[in-house]
């Protein structure tokens, strides 16, 4: 089975180690993994800003790059959510393309969802000495139904204990362009999130989306917390030595 890894633009630029970790997990689960070299962005920034034209063009580009794979997997609930739940909306009234898009949408997975529900992963290579808390990213949780999957996988990490924080399902305030358009409200939301992380006291906050990751880590460091690690779930599952 061939899995197409959609790395996402933010992982590509900001934290390539997450892409490496995802690759390791997928290959470790026995899949042939391809990484289409021309991949860029899923089109979500344009789509969520009301600029459908570029979103549609990028969706068609992703379709061309990934429709030959058996699965499309992304280490992001937000980008996989864009492809699975929103791409079909961009091709209303174009039946031929719409049918192909529907097929792509149906085989698109968020990484942990794929590892649990398709790959049925029994064990993970990662180890972690200490407690972690999991932040539920909005799109992963509400568009892709990612809730138990990362927790199930984290439970397989040797030495790790999961310690739930308060309001783990509340948005961190990133929201794509929201973070710059409504910066003050966003700042308040991420501060609330950081307070809950702080009160929880885990050694690491683990999550599945880069937007939340940059937002939360940036705020934690600014408020003087240099202790709490901020890790993508793929990094912790694959083992930090790989990073």
């Amino acid at each position: 089975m061939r899995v197409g890894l959609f790395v996402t633009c933010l992982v590509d630029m900001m934290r390539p180690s997450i892409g490496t970790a995802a690759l390791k997990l997928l290959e470790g689960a026995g899949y042939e993994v391809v990484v289409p070299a021309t991949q860029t962005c899923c089109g979500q920034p344009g789509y969520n800003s009301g600029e459908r034209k570029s979103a549609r063009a990028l969706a068609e580009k992703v379709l061309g790059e990934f429709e030959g794979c058996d699965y499309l997997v992304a280490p992001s609930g937000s980008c996989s959510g864009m492809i699975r739940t929103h791409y079909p909306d961009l091709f209303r009234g174009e039946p031929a393309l719409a049918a192909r898009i529907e097929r792509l949408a149906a085989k698109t997975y968020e990484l942990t969802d794929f590892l649990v529900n398709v790959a049925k992963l029994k064990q993970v290579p990662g180890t972690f000495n200490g407690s972690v808390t999991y932040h539920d990213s909005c799109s992963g949780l509400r568009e892709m139904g990612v809730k138990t999957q990362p927790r199930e996988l984290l439970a397989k990490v040797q030495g790790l204990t999961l310690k739930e924080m308060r309001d783990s399902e509340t948005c961190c305030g990133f929201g794509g362009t929201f973070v710059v358009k409504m910066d003050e409200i966003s700042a308040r939301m991420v501060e609330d999130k950081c307070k809950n992380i702080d009160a929880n006291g885990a050694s690491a906050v683990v999550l599945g989306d880069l937007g939340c990751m940059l937002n939360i880590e940036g705020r934690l460091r600014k408020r003087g917390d240099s202790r709490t690690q901020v890790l993508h779930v793929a990094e912790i599952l694959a083992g930090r030595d790989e990073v």
Partner: protein
Amino acid sequence: MQSQAMHFKARARAALVNAGLQRGLSKVDGFAAKRAIAIRELEDLEGLRTEAAAVRDRALADLDVWIEAFEREAIRRGATVLYAETGEDVSKLVIEICRRHGLTKAIKSKSMLSEEAQLNTALEGAGVQPVETDLGEYICQLADEPPSHIIAPVIHKTRADIAELFARKHHRPQLDEVEAMTREAREMLRTHFLSADLGISGGNFLIAETGSLALVTNEGNGRMVTTMPRVHVAITGIEKIVPTLEDLCTLMRLLPRSATGQSISNYFTLATGPRGEGDLDGPEHMVFILVDNGRTNLVGSDLQEMLRCIRCGACMNHCPVYQSVGGHAYGWVYPGPMGAVLTPAFLGVEKALDLPQASTFCGACSSVCPVKIPLPDLLRKLRERQVERGLRPWYEMLALRVWGWTAQHPRLYALAAAIGVRCLRTLRNSDGMIISIPFASGWTNTRFMPAPSSGRTFRALYAARAKR
């Protein structure tokens, strides 16, 4: 209510540093917690939500037919049915009713539509004294402030604020306990209940098959307003119609649970026609005013799903943006995600530019909406309208188009990404954080930006690995 929706950002900024308001907003969580408990009583919440959405869609699909049916049944039972196209028309009709019947004092139960119509101001201008009798609305009226939450109008006020307000307005010694304050308000309101000749209510639902008004309240004032005065005027939006009593039951299983976390509200009133022969109480005249005020524009549009709304307020109770800034920031009658759609939809997209942007699309609202309104999708459609009509700033559009275009050209994109990564890395400190980025102060004022963790993009690293 005069719209201030164009000033969302400024009002939100003020709200974020308003200590009293922030204390009040911390109570919103309580509604969400109570809802979470109340929905456990339902065997199949998802099925019920789907059914409720279908009930609303059925009514909206043939709205004209159901309105006619409602009118026929209401008239048959002795009520009068009037129509108002705008908020001003509502005020005109109510004032005309006052003149015709010689009415001088109106007791009101909660009606968001009367806020849309700025009815109180119009009544005062016409020499009719309006008295709000919902405790929260009464406090708003004393303070001369609009409500900030559709279910809990004074959630922005503290107990101390209200104690001080009562002492000043009631000319009585300042009280401290909520119970005592409530008792004092009851005493004040009692004389109004007994002396008013007009009762004005809103309406949660209108039932077509019986021509009835359904009212969901907790304080009992709604029942006084609809039964004690000589004339009862019910003001509702045209979309509040449901075909049958059976449909009403479906929606009632969800409304109080979604709104306040109650299995059923303290009072539920089904008012059908004026006082009949042999009836012990009830008004001599019952008048319905069915209001459009922008609603028909939504019928058949890509925003029609918003008309399903049953005004429970669950969307705002679960909205992290509402919880941060409260209701007044939204600048018009309806706050939260509900208002972020309704305000531009009713008043015009150009009159509320920030509201569709005031969302992270986290989806908490739509996940609790009892009638499954896809609020983030509707907000996105409003953003699309802003773009289509050239209402977004040029630099935002430029940035989006440059990004979109570059992303469609992978080689150029790879080059830009490589340069971007290097530039960002030159800005990082020893902890890998960027303290300040020119043109991105919105981000770096309140947080650092983690720098790219590697000097090369994933795709460059992967290509190098493939070569090896």
